């Protein structure tokens, strides 16, 4: 996909962040309390913490949570690596607590080490099926996180090692990972405390990342 098409698709898909369908309690969500704020802490390509917010509304008769977040890994150098997400979580179907929803997020992330600074635009798409009661929920999730186009800006250190290195936007996709897992949570006074955990697998299925799993604790508040 070209960068133009990607950006166009971001506009079309309401550019957004990752996977709230699993951790928002749909049984507690209604448009009388449309504002969501949340915090997360866990492991996903490193030890990370994130903050975000959202707004619950209706689109074509479907409940939709527009949301955005920023995630930062721990480390001695703050803000050199980061991931931001902007997108929507849509509840498509619900019957007696059983709910099907999807997450569509546009992703911007950056990375920096001794050799290079990377900027990346990607997408994160996932589907969630779960059971949501008034005070608890349980759900399963599958998703795909794609790094679509990446800009490489090498440091003088790497350029001294390999002077012919080419900086700029690289495409097609430089990477992608599937993930699947389970989540559960408890809700009281419109607070939801949830957790999710699962496995991450390279898009080519031959290997996983160095940390081939994810897991996080989340706190959500609707008001």
């Amino acid at each position, binding site marked *: 996909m*070209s*960068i133009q098409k990607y950006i166009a698709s971001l506009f079309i898909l309401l550019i957004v962040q990752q996977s709230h369908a699993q951790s928002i309690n749909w049984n507690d969500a209604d448009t009388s309390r449309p504002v969501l704020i949340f915090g997360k802490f866990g492991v996903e390509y490193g030890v990370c913490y994130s903050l975000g917010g959202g707004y619950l509304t209706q689109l074509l008769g479907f409940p939709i949570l527009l949301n955005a977040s920023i995630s930062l890994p721990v480390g001695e150098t703050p803000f050199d690596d980061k991931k931001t997400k902007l997108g929507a979580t849509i509840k498509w179907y619900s019957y007696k607590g059983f709910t099907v929803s999807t997450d569509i997020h546009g992703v911007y992330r950056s990375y920096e*080490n001794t050799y290079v600074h990377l900027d990346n635009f990607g997408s994160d798409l996932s589907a969630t099926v779960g059971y949501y009661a008034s005070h608890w929920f349980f759900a399963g999730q599958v998703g795909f996180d794609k790094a679509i186009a990446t800009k490489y800006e090498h440091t003088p250190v790497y350029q001294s090692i390999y002077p012919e290195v080419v900086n700029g936007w690289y495409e097609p996709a430089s990477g992608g990972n599937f993930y699947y897992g389970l989540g559960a949570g408890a809700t009281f006074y419109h607070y939801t405390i949830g957790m999710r955990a699962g496995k991450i697998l390279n898009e080519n299925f031959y290997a996983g990342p160095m940390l081939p799993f994810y897991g996080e604790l989340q706190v959500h508040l609707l008001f």
Partner: protein
Amino acid sequence: MTLQGAFALITMLLSACTTIPDAPGNLVPLTADQDPSIPAIEVNGARLHSEAFGPEDSTMIICIHGGPGADYKYMLNCMSLAESGYRVIFYDQIGSGLSERFDKSYYTDKGADALTLMYDELAGVIEHYRTSPEQKVYLLGHSWGGMLAAGFAGYHPDMVQGLVACEPGGLIWEDIVTYVSTSRAFSLWSETLNDATYLDQFITGDENDHETLDYKLALLASENTITNEYNVDGGVWRSGAVVNAGLFEIGMEYEVDLTIGLENFTIPVLFMYSELNEAYPLSWAEHVSSAFVNASLFYVPNAGHSGIIQDPVIWNTITQPRILEYFQSL
């Protein structure tokens, strides 16, 4: 400006600098089979980046780099041994540095014999440069290169007349696992660990996508705060990710043993270890070197793992003088 106009402007700006990710030469250097200007030799069907310095007929010193998957760039200080009259030979091992790449199955299909492939390659390098059957061969191996040198000395004890091993991680699989674990035991909260793991969402690459995987390995190996090696001074030309993965996979499956036959190698061995490699204390040096019949330990102060050879001051004032003393004693 309308939204459509702004969108068109942004996309035009971005598309102006679009390029291709794994085109040869974009992120990592070409290899000897891709670039005929790279000095190379043919050994056992592979084109190996290689150079030799010093008098052709004098005692050979084969410099064996670490990894698996590093290259000899960081060992170039050893070139000065030629000034002492030795024939100093460098080569990038198969799939490493600027040598030819092969698919992972090329190694894994050989099973435990993949180690023999590495021994045969070293024997081929020796044969390529040897000018007479009487010409002596000294091996100078660093890290994985020290492990390979030890395995080779046990496999071909009559082909080696001297051996310097600089911090070989371990010579039996259990020790290799211990050393790799210790030397990569970064704190969960550290920048080093997160720099390594965070990258996985940017770059993946197919199993045999050499350009991408070699580049990624270079980023991962840029520094190590435990072994205190820093490849920021041009430590490697190009990493060899596929051979690295292939040999580790074989090691795990077959629990390789590089001590086989070492009891037949009775020539004194010079065994070096550094002050700043926290994963290589004296106790570990004593443990690993005990596989040799006759090894003498040498402590290199103020150096990390690669600094034993890569740091020019350490090399000129500490490492090289001791190596020359050792060679002259043989």
